């Protein structure tokens, strides 16, 4: 226990440094705003605002981005309840009971319930994170290149097996992300690869940020402009007082234990790559309903129906950081961008982070505790302000976000070539999304691609070209077998379905946020 408490205390001290605390609060507010706006989620906020972090040291940068991630998970509930439109895919399940509560004039009860549930989910998950992260990182230290490569294959396979998207389109998305990661000079031979039209801009490769901002900034804005036609939504307004907040808090705290259960579920679902906060929140809603003595009230305005998904999506967001920090495998598209940011800041993600950069890791963990407290306070104190933000017309918001995307895409390499690529990726992502191509796997792949290739080559050189190296070592064999099962399961299921009579189009839009 001492091995955890001592570094945690130093992490809290690190997080309380004035600059870190200031960036944490700014991040929480920015995250709440981003999360509250329909169509924008944590991944968009983190992708668009990552270039801002070039101003500050890596410790502060990760604290800022993690606070955005955290805040966005809280903020998603605001538009789900007051508009009936999820602020992000992670808050879809919040609409089920949040909107009926708002229609009954109990929007404040739903918002307080969502905020306190998020706080409980955050607290439970951060404690679990603190307990599990150090031993997992220590265990992962025995991983060599074959184990690392097998682990990455497993991460990609989870997108195919658990992502719930179209299988060939998911595989395509992963592969194009991996291919884009190879553009530029080969690190082993120095040979140029995939230099199209001899454009010099390709020699420095395709920065993951260009793809991420293209997809989650420009592509997302184009999608939202089409969906909203630029108009301002009609918002269900509320006027809370301290007395009403306390009254509502007393009501929702009756569901504390059930919320702890759904938080636990959310955390463990969040740890799985490709699963993440959206399925976690939906599963938590189902779990809460099945444990309820009054399941029929769900969907008609039961506060527990708001609290379950909100606690789970917060817990899942922390859970998805566990494999990112300990194994170097992101658990969600947002953590994939955080991981890419770590590479830009000169850090090597993986278990060695705990030994080589303990101040970075424990500073982040410490900041999660603080961000959790600050976000719930800011959320409850400024509910009317966040509700007001929702009234901003998209024809004002969109050009501002486009501007941040263009400038953010230019800043890392200071090359207009990247900005052109970003526009190309954004438009392509928008069009492919309309055809149900998942884009989150491409972002994960472009971040992990260079590492995956390096581990594959190191492994094959060690074995003199014998691929059986991945199947003769226990950990890599286990990962490969799990990956194989994850890939085969949906393919077999799809083949079985294809033998049946085709039915009409009825599937909803696929996950964009992951």
């Amino acid at each position, binding site marked *: 226990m001492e091995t955890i408490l001592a570094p945690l205390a130093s992490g809290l001290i690190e997080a309380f440094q004035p600059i870190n605390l200031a960036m944490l609060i700014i991040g929480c507010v920015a995250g709440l705003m981003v999360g509250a706006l329909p169509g924008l989620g944590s991944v968009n906020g983190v992708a668009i605002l990552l270039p801002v972090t070039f101003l500050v040291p890596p410790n502060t940068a990760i604290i800022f981005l993690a606070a955005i991630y955290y805040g966005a998970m809280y903020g998603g509930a605001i538009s789900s309840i007051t508009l009936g439109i999820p602020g992000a895919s992670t808050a879809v399940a919040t609409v089920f009971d949040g909107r009926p509560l708002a229609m009954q004039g109990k929007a404040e009860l739903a918002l307080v319930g969502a905020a306190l549930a998020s706080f409980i989910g955050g607290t439970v998950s951060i404690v679990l994170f603190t307990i599990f992260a150090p031993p997992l990182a220590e265990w992962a230290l025995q991983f060599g290149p074959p184990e690392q490569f097998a682990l990455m294959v497993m991460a990609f396979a989870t997108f195919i097996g658990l992502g719930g998207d179209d299988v060939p389109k998911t595989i395509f998305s992963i592969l194009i992300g991996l291919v884009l990661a190879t553009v530029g000079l080969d690190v082993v031979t120095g*040979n140029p690869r995939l230099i199209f039209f001899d454009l010099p801009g390709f020699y420095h490769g395709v920065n993951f940020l260009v793809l991420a901002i293209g997809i989650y900034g420009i592509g997302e804005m184009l999608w939202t402009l089409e969906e909203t036609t630029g108009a301002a939504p009609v918002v269900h307004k509320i006027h809370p007082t301290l007395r009403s907040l306390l009254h509502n808090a007393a009501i929702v705290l009756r569901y504390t234990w059930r919320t702890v259960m759904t938080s636990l579920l959310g955390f463990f679902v969040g740890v799985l790559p490709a699963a993440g906060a959206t399925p976690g929140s939906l599963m938590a809603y189902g779990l809460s309903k099945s444990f309820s003595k009054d399941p029929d009230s769900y969907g008609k305005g039961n506060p527990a129906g708001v609290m379950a998904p909100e606690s789970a999506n917060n817990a899942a967001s922390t859970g998805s950081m566990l494999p990112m920090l300990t194994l170097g495998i992101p658990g969600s598209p947002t953590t994939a961008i955080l991981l890419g940011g770590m590479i830009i800041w000169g850090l090597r993600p993986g278990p060695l982070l705990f030994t080589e950069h303990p101040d970075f890791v424990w500073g982040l963990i410490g900041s999660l505790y603080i961000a959790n407290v600050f976000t719930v306070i800011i959320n409850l104190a400024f509910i009317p302000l966040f509700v007001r933000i929702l009234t901003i017309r998209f024809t004002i918001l969109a*050009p501002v976000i486009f501007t941040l995307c263009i400038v953010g895409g230019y800043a890392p390499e200071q090359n*207009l070539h990247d900005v052109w690529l970003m526009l190309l990726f954004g438009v392509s992502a928008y069009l492919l999304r309309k055809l149900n191509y998942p884009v989150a796997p491409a972002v994960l792949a472009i971040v992990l691609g260079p590492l995956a290739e390096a581990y594959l080559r190191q492994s094959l050189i060690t074995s003199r070209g014998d691929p059986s190296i991945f199947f003769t070592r226990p950990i890599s064999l286990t990962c490969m077998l799990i990956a194989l099962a994850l890939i085969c399961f949906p393919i077999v299921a799809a083949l079985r379905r294809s033998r049946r009579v085709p039915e009409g189009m009825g599937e909803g839009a696929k996950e964009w946020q992951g």
Partner: protein
Amino acid sequence: MTVRTAELLAAILLALASISFMVKASENYILWVPLRGPGAGAWPFWLSLGMLLTCLWNIFRWFRGLTPESRSNETFMSSGAVYIVGVSVASLFLLILGSAYIGIYFSLILFLFFFIRIIGKNGMLTSVMLSIFLPIGLFLFFEWALRIPLPKGISEPLFYPIYRIIY
């Protein structure tokens, strides 16, 4: 264009892109190089082949009508969507093009005013304020705080007096 046509068109275009990746990757060794390991082109080549196979899989499914998109005769993009997305993409294109020639700050002023006032039909005060103060804010953040110069094209000499103050 229907969703069904768009699905096929996308699969064909992505298949062609995959082939072009394979061709470019094969400019390097794509097999095992004795004593050196996999050739520099091996990883992108075989991944691109995988991309091509998934595209062929999609085309096969299109012919068999196995996916919802391959059976849908709905319009791929409504006229309203074509308008707002088309205008947005065209204005972004001109913004980037303008950044190379007249500089990003002046291009941004034009882009923001066009989008907020003309496309969005928002108030003149909001449009002018945002069009002027957002580029100024970006200048202060990137050029002054971060020391990252943004492209200025032919407008560069106009910034010399400001450089003398901030640097």
